[in-house]
């Protein structure tokens, strides 16, 4: 798992999954299921944004 998350492929793929989850939660929030879902959706979105940026800096370090 650690190796997976250290690789660029792992980070981008995980970010892709976060993106898809973010869509589901944000949509639930928008359709009136409550701010809780908007919050979870936003967190997933932040996760999907942070992971690729980390991968960019890691690549730069190498």
């Amino acid at each position, binding site marked *: 798992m650690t190796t997976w998350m250290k690789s*660029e*492929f792992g980070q*981008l*793929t995980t*970010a*892709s999954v*976060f*993106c*898809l989850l*973010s*869509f589901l939660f*944000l*949509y639930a*929030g*928008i359709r009136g299921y409550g701010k809780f879902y*908007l919050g979870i*959706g*936003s967190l997933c*979105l932040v996760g*999907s*944004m*942070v*992971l*690729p*940026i980390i*991968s*960019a800096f890691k690549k730069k370090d190498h």
Partner: protein
Amino acid sequence: MDNVSVFNWFIALIPILLLLYLLLKSKWGVAQAAPVGLAFALVSGMTIFGGSWELLSTEVAKGLWNGILVMSVVAPAILIYEVAHEAKAFDPIRYGLRLFSKNELLQILALGWVFVSFLQGVTGFGVPVAVCAPLLVGIGVRPTWAVIIALTGHAWGNTFGTLAVAWSALVFQSGINDPELISQTAFWACVFTWIMDFAAGLAICWFYNGLQAVRSMAIPVLVITLLHGGGQMIFAQINPTLANFVVSSLTLVVIFFIGRIPAFNKSMVVEDSQVMDRTVMIDDQKDVSGMGLGQAVVPYVVLTVVTLVVLMIAPLKEMLSVWKIGFSFPGTETALGFVNPPVELYSPIVVFTHAGTFLLLSALVGYFVFKRNGHITAGGAKRITVNLIDKSAPSTVAVLLLIAMSKVMSGTGQVEVLAYGTALATGSMYGLLAPFVGMLGSFMTSSNMASNILFGKFQMSMAEILSLNPGIILGAQTGGSAMGNVLSPGNVLLGVTTTGILGAEGEILKKVIAVSLPLIFLSGLIVLFYTLIF
């Protein structure tokens, strides 16, 4: 637009500048650069443009949904390539191309200009680049150049391709209904897209071997561009819906005959061409696969036939268009008064007429045909699946976040501020910038049609306010969009994903900017002189 100020204009420009800087200067991929642009667009959307959390969430969700739609085309396009690759179907295709012509550059033009344009005429929605870039790689073109060639070669067909959906959007959005004005707009749209087409033919030759290649291919390039651009100009006046399809199909037949002319059937290979990867061992002297060209092209024939049958037979299309998957979104408004109306069914996937469905069907038919004839061996399905995931999973985040960024920018009024601010600053010189506005639209949305929807009405208003000829302004809008399509990071992503070179977006953008920007500037000059004189 009372929220246009120099400050707002500059803030709205920053996400795009950030994206370009990270792609071109820092050599980041779109997957890494898009989140930075999105983050800035979200912060400025909330703080400067008055977007609420709900509004931003709605726009992000719309963008993510649009991204899912794009990936539903990309993934099956990769699947077709992987199926053909696993079955070694590119060997007979290479051999078949050699039978068509021994001239390597003519083979590249046939795939990267003529066939890609044909696919644009039939399908669009990114399919031409997603399908043709890997095909070019299959005949020995370097992946980066394969993407550049496919992008450049298909762009001219954006306005009248895909049964002229982008053209229809322009006419509808701008509200023009005077037949003379429609005819004039079609004329100018054809002028600008012809410029792109001619430049694409020349550029592909130039990429291959500079001026020498341009000279050696001058006649085929002239013939093809006369058919593409000139033919479209004539047919667009008769039936805009079929204009691009008719001429790109005709050209597909004509290039076959060009390949039979002895002068263009002589063996011509430039060993040190920058476009070709000579390290890959390609034996095109004989077809060792035992497959035959007819079987090798099965997925592509199925794709063409199914698309044509479904899209051209109206009752069948109507029947299949019943099943739609889409989401409704509530209306939102920024604190500055920019309104996003509610949408009942936002960007629905029409399941059975969707480009992704046609691609998936073609890939499956190809798989079963190859498998039945023993060209896909044990473990093939697993290898295809692993390669498909390898290529599509990491690029999903890039596509989704990039489109989310563009939706946040348009939903918070930032794109409008950019366009209106530019127009207000230029006044009567606006003609020069009209194609750049079209380019901005397709750069942001990766789509000629979306750009026309976004700016069609705006361009019409500018023409009326500044008393400019609306025909040429609207023509420049869609022409600039077609040229800008080449620069769109979203379209570049399609190519790099299907050719397996994710991260090379900046390198490709640098090359296509050199082709596209001068053409957009030239189009701007034409509009400027025309509007100043007439």
